[in-house]
């Protein structure tokens, strides 16, 4: 038996069509994909891996990852990572830990409800990978906490902060959206758009910055993560191609590419933008350069162009994304700087060298953002004294592309007014308004009349990075859960 046949015999052929229960009981209509395919069983996942090979390869990767960690601890590398980079990791690691966790649970859902046996197997393997990435993020946090003087804290001590601080609501809403999608949409959103187009920013550009600032563990961790991502990308590309071969799916696939392109753009601009453009002392690449290389050239001009033979077009809000690219990371850094009193990571005033680099990479930086930093340098108080309008899709403030020209677009739905930071977010809402009904009151209402001590307890971490060990919340709101403090 040929290896391919053997693989199919041990994976795809495990599935059978139930006859004792109706298919509607096995995969209820509610959970099925809206895509169609003449024969789902004919779909082949491109990156075929058996259990035996998976655990062998992954155990080897784990060994390598932990060997680098151990060396970093033993020889003091972790303690010598540039402090500014560790502040980046406080932000990045907070977002990454829970994002990977959501992907883990989300891919278990795809495995359960996807229509093609091969997608189900591949998604289950991917769920395990995402679990691995969650753990890798926790191990990294542990290393910083143990070996660096920056005051890093472990995820369990900052979950309330992640759940409640404005900066991480974009991350929450992104992955909550992803885990509640059509199973094929989840593949398009995660494997095709996020992982093929955008994770190179996370796992290649950001680690390059990490290594440039002395963080070899981060580089190694993400090199091994990226090797998992390669498998995921192959699945996403194969699913997209298979779906597009049936013209009936084109509109859906296009919509999902458009939607997830915009969601990925907004999230990464806000979270990874500062990691490349502001936090690191040594900056190998700007967010704009990385975006142009990995997203525009590799993904859109490469992969999406190739799929144009099936009618797929570039993402509908690409032009707006390119406009925002000039300003997004600067805008979000200003917002972070103005609210740094509530953050447990340091948001610094750019140095002269930083400003020089920003002007070189972003020609419009000085005209748009220069005055803000000159005022700061002159001693102006820029601490935020109002709460922002927040986008009802991405949950970042309506402050893009930059504060003076901030976009705020209304939609009235079912007697409620919703606001959006961009045409992209507005379009996403209008496709599925029921899904995106506002569930959480704007912070202006939530935090009305609350004093500073209350807010500190709500966020559960002091600005100098100490977990308070307990939390409280409005009645009937977040559960008043005890949050452990790690010692």
């Amino acid at each position, binding site marked *: *038996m040929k290896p391919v046949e053997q693989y199919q015999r041990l994976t795809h052929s*495990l599935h*059978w069509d*139930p006859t*004792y*229960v109706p298919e509607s009981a096995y995969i209820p209509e509610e*959970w099925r994909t809206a895509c169609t395919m003449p024969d789902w069983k004919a779909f082949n996942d491109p990156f075929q891996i058996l*259990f*035996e090979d998976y*655990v*062998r390869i*992954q*155990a080897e990767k784990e060994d390598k990852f932990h060997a680098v960690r151990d060396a970093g601890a033993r020889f003091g590398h972790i303690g010598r990572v540039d402090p500014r980079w560790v502040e980046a990791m406080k932000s990045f690691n907070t977002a990454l830990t829970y994002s990977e*966790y959501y992907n883990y*649970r*989300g891919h*278990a*859902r795809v495995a*359960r409800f996807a229509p093609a046996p091969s997608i189900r197997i591949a998604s*289950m393997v991917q769920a*395990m990978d995402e679990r*691995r990435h*969650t*753990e890798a993020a*926790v191990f990294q946090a542990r290393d910083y906490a143990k070996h660096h003087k920056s005051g890093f804290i*472990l995820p*369990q001590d900052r979950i309330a902060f*992640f759940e409640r601080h404005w900066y991480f609501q974009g991350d929450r809403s992104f992955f*909550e959206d992803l*885990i*509640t999608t059509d199973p094929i949409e989840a593949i398009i959103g995660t494997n095709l758009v996020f992982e093929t187009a955008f994770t190179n920013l996370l796992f290649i550009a950001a680690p390059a910055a990490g290594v440039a600032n002395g963080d070899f563990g981060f580089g190694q961790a993400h090199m091994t993560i990226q090797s998992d991502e390669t498998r995921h990308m192959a699945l996403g590309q194969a699913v997209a191609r298979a779906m597009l071969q049936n013209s009936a799916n084109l509109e859906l696939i296009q919509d999902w590419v458009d939607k997830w392109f915009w969601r990925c753009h907004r999230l990464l601009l806000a979270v990874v933008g500062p990691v490349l453009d502001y936090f690191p002392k040594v900056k190998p690449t700007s967010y704009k350069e990385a975006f142009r290389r990995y997203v525009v050239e590799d993904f859109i001009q490469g992969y999406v162009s190739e799929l144009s033979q099936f009618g797929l077009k570039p993402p509908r809000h690409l032009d707006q994304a390119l406009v925002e690219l000039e300003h997004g990371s600067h805008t979000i850094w200003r917002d972070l700087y103005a609210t740094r*009193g509530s953050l447990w990571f340091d948001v610094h005033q750019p140095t002269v060298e930083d400003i020089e680099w920003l002007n070189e990479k972003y020609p419009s930086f000085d005209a748009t953002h220069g005055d803000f930093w000159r005022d700061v340098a002159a001693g102006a*108080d820029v601490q935020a*004294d*109002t*709460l*922002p*309008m927040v986008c009802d899709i991405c949950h970042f*403030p*309506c*402050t893009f592309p930059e504060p*003076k020209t*901030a976009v*705020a677009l209304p939609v009235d739905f079912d007697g409620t*007014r919703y*606001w959006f930071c961009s045409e992209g977010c507005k379009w996403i809402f209008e496709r599925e308004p*029921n899904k*995106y*009904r506002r*569930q*959480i009151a*704007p912070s*202006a209402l939530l935090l009305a009349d609350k*004093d500073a001590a209350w807010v*500190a*307890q709500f966020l559960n971490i002091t600005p100098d990075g100490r977990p*308070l*060990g307990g939390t409280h919340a409005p009645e009937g709101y*977040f559960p008043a859960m005890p949050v452990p403090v790690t*010692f």
Partner: protein
Amino acid sequence: MLIYARILGETSPGAFNLSASDATVGQLLDQVRAARAGSGRSLELMIDGAEPGRRLADLGVHDFDLVNIRASGQPGPASHSAAVAEASQIVDFEAIAVTPQAGARRLSEYEEVTQLTQWHAPFHIDGGRPSQKIWSDENSVLRSRNWDTYRSPDKLYYRTYTAQQARAERAVSTAFRFAEEAGQLSEVDPARVDQMRQLVGPLQYPDWGLCVVHQNVTRFAMSSWIAGAASFMMFDELRHAQLYGRLALAYSAHHDGFDDPRPTWMDAARFQPTRRLTEELLAVLDWGQATIVASLLVEPAITSTAQSLLMAGSVTAGDPLTQFVCQSIAEDKARHRHSATEFLKMVSDDPSFADANRGHIAGWVADWGPRAIDAARALSNRNEAAERALGDAMAASAEILEAAGINAESISQTELGASPR
């Protein structure tokens, strides 16, 4: 009344919470003026007729509306709003910090990577439809005051799980290689070959069914602790299905009739009760029910019977490979039952929901237990040793359930024989 306002061409929209539902233009502008961007400046609401005394509602400005403001003059010296002044107070963190409990200890690595990675309600997304809920109590009838109290006895996490299973797979692969190199399976007793032909290939399907069941649990479980254990069970069951498949392939290298087990699984009489049971279990979307029924009723019944049939006499018939593989599978299965037993203990001892949970579980035992036994007996084809193994497995499950206060008569009082204890 929440109004968004921005100074046109200067600031992004900010939120202004006006206490009065009939707030006036003046009240809004006072709030904007209290913020830094409007401080000391002449402000004008850019709506026709927006006199300070006019009610915003009369101008068509309602809750959640955005208004533009024109500002002239330079911002004055910082005159922060009361809210900002309050926010800038020095918080006495020592006073509000929660004192750690005495005896707090370092977390183990298992705890560090598993604890509190699942975030909490309220969620941003809740479209009202089941598929658009993130994590919800509605996905199981079982309840817990705190799902985060679960701990899996194996304390596995990805790093240790992959290391452990890579070792197990190395051992099993070595056994397959030795069997192949020695041509072991070519010499197996023909009666044994015939028995394997009927059994080993189709047995991949029940374990694949369990794999799918655990996929469901991994998605919906209400804490990272439970999902962690479920996901390793899920992946183990893929392993088991593939091991049965590899055994069938190893036999097919020397004997006919091992290539396609599907017709036997779909049509052979001895498998139909097991297939029905598995399919009915696949249709259980209640993750709590699926955990209990799969790991304490269905899996023990089917595995005990199947493994008895596969292992009994295998060595003497010239097939030590099957014995070795089954033992490796059995180690995983025992781990799964321990994990499920801890789950059972947690929900049946819950300080708030124990009685209700026990009631639900007792119902599942009464419903699924006899059917699991019937399916396993059909699979055993009246093989006495297999029925004894089934009896042992059901007695063990009954003991676990009864220790949790669950009536398990339906599986403890059967006609099955059991090994002397």
